[in-house]
């Protein structure tokens, strides 16, 4: 039986976390992808190009605008009989929709998998990643969200899937989209960036986050933050890296003025190279950093910007 992956997309194509979910799905069977929404434009064509996807299901209807959980879950439940596994990335969208699908199918969802052992068995982090649980499902059908940082995404091009519209039944209309306030940024998304530079409570206020920007510009980095910085109101919650925020695993993670609470480490310790800049040499962040610089960030950041500018 094939497996179905719910994809997320934006005008530039299929989002990287969804491409990681496709990568996870490939070890489970033939991969079909679902794109759903209202006025989908090029999304289906972009999905058809993903390597490893053999069929793209397209659900384009006003009721699916903004992919609210109630109609989106009803759609996935209607498609479920044809699939052994239903997957999505562990994102705000995946976490909103997939548990709802699972309950309607009388299935215990398997959240945020980091590894596929076999068709029934998966590894997932618990306790902020302080334990890696191997769990085996007894459900006939599996509903899974995928930790994008743990699977290399499939390429955006190279495949040639068939595209098929979905016949839509009645969808629940108990919720309504009102508005979205999305932060506009030229920078890459946190979960997709090759380099991430994050600030913590040591940044002292929101204005000082500007010190990270020339460095982020130079490195093509996304800017993140610790929960302490978000709680203190320095930056909005979508910057948050950690157990209750975003999970990232970039090539290079630069932690600035972050002490390294376990909840923050949970969100970034799979990064390839970690740099910590902190004036407290006892800060726990240095226990996971490949390169540690004990320094006042207000001196070190301008220096770092200048040093990167020089060469």
């Amino acid at each position, binding site marked *: 039986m094939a497996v179905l992956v719910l994809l997320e997309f934006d005008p530039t194509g299929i989002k990287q976390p969804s491409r990681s979910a496709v990568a996870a799905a490939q070890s489970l069977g033939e991969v079909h992808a679902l794109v759903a929404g209202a006025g989908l434009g090029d999304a289906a064509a972009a999905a058809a190009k993903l390597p490893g996807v053999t069929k793209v299901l397209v659900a384009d209807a006003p009721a699916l605008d903004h992919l609210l959980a109630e109609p989106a879950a009803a759609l996935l439940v209607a498609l479920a009989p044809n699939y052994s596994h239903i997957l999505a990335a562990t994102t705000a969208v995946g976490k909103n929709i997939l*548990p709802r699908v699972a309950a309607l199918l009388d299935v*215990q969802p398997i959240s945020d998998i980091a590894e596929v052992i076999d068709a029934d068995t998966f590894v997932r982090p*618990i306790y902020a990643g302080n334990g*890696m649980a191997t*769990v085996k499902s007894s459900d006939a059908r599996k509903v899974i969200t995928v930790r994008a940082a743990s699977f290399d995404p499939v390429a955006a091009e190279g495949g040639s899937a068939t595209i098929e519209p979905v016949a839509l039944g009645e969808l629940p209309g108990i919720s309504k989209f009102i*508005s979205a306030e999305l932060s506009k940024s030229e920078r890459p998304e946190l979960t997709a960036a090759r*380099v991430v530079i994050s600030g913590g409570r040591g940044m002292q206020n929101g204005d000082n986050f500007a010190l990270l920007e020339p460095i982020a510009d130079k490195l093509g980095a996304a800017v993140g933050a610790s929960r302490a910085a978000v709680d203190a109101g320095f930056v909005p919650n979508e910057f948050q890296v950690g157990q209750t925020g975003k999970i990232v695993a970039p090539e290079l993670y630069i932690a600035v003025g972050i002490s390294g609470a376990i909840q923050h480490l949970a969100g970034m*310790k799979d990064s390839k190279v970690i740099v910590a800049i902190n004036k407290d040499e006892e800060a726990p962040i240095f226990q996971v950093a490949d390169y540690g610089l004990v320094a006042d960030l207000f001196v070190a950041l301008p220096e770092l910007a200048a040093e990167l500018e020089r060469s």
Partner: protein
Amino acid sequence: MKVLVPVKRVVDYNVKVRVKTDKSGIETSGVKMSMNPFDEIAVEEAVRLKEKGVATEIVAISMGVPQCAETIRTALAMGADRGILVETDVDLQPLAVAKLLKAIADQEQPQLIILGKQAIDDDMSATGPMLAALLGWSQGTFASKLAVDGDVITVTREVDGGLETVALNLPSIITTDLRLNEPRYASLPNIMRARKKPIDNKKPADLGVDPTPRLTVVRVDEPPKRKAGQKVGSVAELVSKLRTEAKVI
């Protein structure tokens, strides 16, 4: 309207947890337990709705070992009116919790159920939407703001790129994100008063639910440890090492 608030007893967020040496799970004996932090936010929000005159009664629910009654007492001290404890020694997973909560909701007939967006032990982030599905209700997950107006609740949600606002038909399920509110500390008089508030005891069988887990934990391993690396003496040395040694810039 009546509001239900499920609260989970978890290892306190300040505890540095350890994997058991036999790899059967996480060491929880002799460890400080507390209410799941997101559930505290849920209780606080319910109490604020009552203070505004929107909520009329708040019922706190917990499930598991008898000590979960302490977690309910915490909610009662914060301002919930009464409690329901579903006692079982079965390892409750979100599907079973959602079914038990549905059975309670069928009896209690609330208009709103507020839950934490995730528990910090199993990090599943599943129970809220699952309960909404079983009840056939609307859901507002990861809420950072909510307002009730007649039979509609407007919810601002924390999504990956920013904020999204949705209008949901009541009855509805809300799950809390960090910035919804800052939970209060219970005062001593309120802690004393909470001791007199009633807690009703039930068993899964009373609610007609089979709580058998669908996921078997095969084993729990320690995550791969990162080794501490080297200290660098200057920004110039850092940049040079990132270029020539780590080759990441």
